[in-house]
């Protein structure tokens, strides 16, 4: 170990001209290995304040988890969960354990009961997780809170797939139970031959399938499917793409027109932040590259644009901007608080495209993740206006109203999990770290006699097929 350090120091001395100050060998090493040459954004041990921020966020999950089911609520005090919010909870759990907010015993207990649930939960038509579950009873719910199956969301499932994979990478002792939960599912309808993702909803007792996902979340969800060996080629492609210009900065936008297909395609921070914190904007199978290099170049560029226009809005208008989807305590309860949507920059709309321009927030989860990922003068300014937006007994609020400065005191698993993810990212870097350990599910998929069927990828297929896949993914290089 010592020799390596010495080598680095040699390298360092020639760099001092650039303003790197070396006081002692040790602090020099720390500063150097933590610098932007090796990492994106912030890297290093958490400060006392940051640890306290993490504890506040974890408080949410302490308050909102249910022993009976192992689940956590998606909104403070509201007993329902989606696959996205289960992924939030997993992210929070991993962070809480790795930041040492909880001990091994508590982690083991919480994770085990959640995995138990995932292996026992009723599935929509026996195929895939339903969109919503009751966190008290573990039963499937519809949007009105009735016990009823309604369908699945490929985007929600995608995020859950990512976090289940991260859990099994970092806590390999649990991987078997993770794999078993997923092996229960049937993937035939959620991803097609060309690699598009589909949502299924129940219409007149039949499943109605629709392509799901627009630029941002579509690519993010695709990473989850890719992580489990699927080939979501169309979903992970940024196409179809158009470019819009805000303050002179080009930003990618989904070219599919919501006026034709009724699917909104707002540009928001969170999917890009997730892809940054979890994947470092790398290819999913990238095990080697430094965190300062982003092997999915296009995504990295798209994420940078999303950050940059928000900073530019601040520079040009002096309006603090950190935007993403959020919940709120008043009508309409959920908003796409976007950078661009339905033809307009800085459009804040509901899922019915109604405009709520006075309900735009400086979002806590957007600001936190931007600060950790980009670490600029602007993100410091953002942190100044959101760092007190919490109730120490309940967790972090959604954000601060752009139009008035007031708090939006709604509290969600999404915001609190994102805060924990961001702080964990600061301490450990990229969260999704693939390895070569053989897993239970791979053994199943690799053997024609043990294969689970249900449209799982067949790793035993002739080599030709796999070659094709690699050439396609190689495009991102």
């Amino acid at each position, binding site marked *: 170990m010592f020799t390596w350090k010495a080598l680095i120091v040699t390298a360092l001395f020639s760099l001092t001209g*650039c303003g790197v100050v070396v006081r002692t060998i040790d602090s020099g090493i720390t500063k150097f290995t933590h610098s932007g*040459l090796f990492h994106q954004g912030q890297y290093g041990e958490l400060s006392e304040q940051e640890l306290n921020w993490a504890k506040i966020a974890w408080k949410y999950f302490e308050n909102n988890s249910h022993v009976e089911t192992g689940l956590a609520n998606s909104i403070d005090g509201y007993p329902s969960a989606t696959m996205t919010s289960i992924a939030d909870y997993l992210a929070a759990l991993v962070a809480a354990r790795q930041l040492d907010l909880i001990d091994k015993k508590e982690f083991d207990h919480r994770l085990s009961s959640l995995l138990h649930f995932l292996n026992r939960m009723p599935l929509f038509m026996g195929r895939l997780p339903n969109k919503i579950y009751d966190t008290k009873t573990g039963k499937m719910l519809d949007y009105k809170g009735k016990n009823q199956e309604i369908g699945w969301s490929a985007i929600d499932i995608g995020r859950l797939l990512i976090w289940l994979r991260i859990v099994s990478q970092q806590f390999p002792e649990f991987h078997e139970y993770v794999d078993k939960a997923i092996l229960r599912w049937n993937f035939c309808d959620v991803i097609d031959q060309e690699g598009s993702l589909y949502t299924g909803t129940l219409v007149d007792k039949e499943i109605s399938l629709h392509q799901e996902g627009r630029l941002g979340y579509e690519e993010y969800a695709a990473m989850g499917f890719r992580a489990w060996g699927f080939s979501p080629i169309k979903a992970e492609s940024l196409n179809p793409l158009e470019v819009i210009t805000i*303050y002179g900065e080009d930003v990618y936008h989904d070219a599919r027109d919501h006026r034709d297909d009724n699917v909104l395609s707002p540009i928001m921070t969170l999917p890009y932040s997730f892809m940054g914190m979890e994947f470092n904007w790398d290819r999913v199978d990238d095990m080697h590259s430094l965190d300062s290099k982003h092997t999915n170049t296009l995504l990295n560029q798209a994420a940078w644009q999303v950050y*940059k226009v928000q900073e530019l809005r601040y520079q040009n208008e002096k309006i603090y901007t950190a935007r993403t989807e959020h919940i709120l305590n008043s009508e309409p309860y959920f908003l796409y608080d976007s950078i661009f949507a339905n033809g*307009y920059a800085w459009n804040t709309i509901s899922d019915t495209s109604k405009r709520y321009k006075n309900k735009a927030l400086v979002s806590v989860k957007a600001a936190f993740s931007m600060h950790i990922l980009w670490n600029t003068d602007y993100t410091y300014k953002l942190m100044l206006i959101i760092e007190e937006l919490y109730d120490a007994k309940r967790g972090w609020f959604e954000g601060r109203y752009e139009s008035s400065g007031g708090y939006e005191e709604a509290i969600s698993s999404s915001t609190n999990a994102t805060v924990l993810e961001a702080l964990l990212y600061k301490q450990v870097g990229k969260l999704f770290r693939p390895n070569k350990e053989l897993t239970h599910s791979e053994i199943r998929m690799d053997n024609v006699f043990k294969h689970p069927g249900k449209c799982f990828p067949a790793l035993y297929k002739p080599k030709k097929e796999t070659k094709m896949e690699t050439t396609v993914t190689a495009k991102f290089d």
Partner: protein
Amino acid sequence: MSVNKLKILVTFAVLILFSACQSTNKSSNNPSYGEKIIEQSSPYFTKGEQPGRQGKLSEKEMNMAKVAWRYFENNFHPKTGLVNAVNNYPSTTLWDTASYLGGMVAVRELGIIDKRTFDTRFIPLLKTLNNMELYRNEVPNKVYHAKTAKKVDYTNKPGEIGYSALDIGRFLIWMKIIKERYGEYADAIDTALLRWNYCHVVNEHGVLYGAHGKKGKATTYVQEGRLGYEEYAAKGFALWGFNTERASKPEPYEIIKLFGHQIPYDSRDPRSLKAHNYVVAESYVLDGIELNWDLPLDRKSNNSTHTVPWMAEFAQRIYKVQEARYIHTGILTARTEHQLATSPYFVYDTIYTDGYAWNTITESGKYVPKYSAIALKGAIGMWGLWDTPYTDLLFDAVSDLYDENKGFYEGRFENGTGLINTFTANNNGIILETLLYKEQGKLLNFGQNRNSKWDNIVGSDFVGLNKCLPGKR
């Protein structure tokens, strides 16, 4: 940190010795909003990139002029001198009257009608202008009954609804063109315009205002005009000496990139202000044909020099992006506002409006893509101003779309569902204007610098007060 990773670190550390100071904080550049805008007052001249069509009309083109004129023969009301804006419907606006005058000047210049015919049509119109009731003693109402010259509402029933600064602006341009070309009408034209009160329609900062008012309700004044139309209409006021400082500026605008072209659009937000910020060919085409994208009182520069360079540049982009759409999508494109034969009767068929490229909307903002069309006035107008293979193709697409008894059709639907079976004064007038432009270039053709009645009254300290004439506010 694992030893493995450190190995990579070291290799990397050695590598970066060569790449001196590298910052991960990408510093922000100044945002660019596309082409820098040159102050209109600056003595800057620009050469047009594309010469327009020039030369004698061919036999076919002369025949087109005769067909287009048919419209005005059919829809003329000898008593009022007015012409229906839409075939067989006795209602008109100042905008459509200006298009009619453009058509009539064209046929006179092209020798299709003689001076006597012009007189018999224009003198009753001057009479109407000097007699008609104005909107609340300010300027003409938005709509008049073509047969009776009475103020009407949009249902053509007697009443009043307010006025449009854009319509008035275009009308003022044509009053100026006729006054300069045919000095024999100058005094009657001046008298008609001296009846008007300009206090509200253009304010002290040179902003144009439209008015809304119903019976029993006070007038509300609303800033009128968005990028393209606003500057075009402002030139009408400026030609008569009014200060149009703010209206004549392109600002506020933003840029959207379409097929690599930087397309300017008005950045006043249609969601809060209701007015749509449509980008269409018509405003730029009219300004090009009538005023050569020149400063209003530019008497000297030739046709290949444009003394409002930004407008020439924007017009160029508006043309280019439509050509680019054809190249990239195969859809023949000549977009502008146009009429329809059925409800909703009128659409803004745009290059961009209300957030979307190639958006086609109704007055209320409803998205109606099936009504996108090649508008004849847009296609022919671009053919006149840009002599290119693409406009040749546009010409081939539309030059025979007429009913010889009625004039030119309004357009041809982009989705292949045929022609827009409607005939309008605006469409046929602009087609005629364009044909004249081919023979003569810029239509505003200044005559001798006489001291007219208008000039005398504007210059006098004792008459023409309280109407906010130029310099008398």
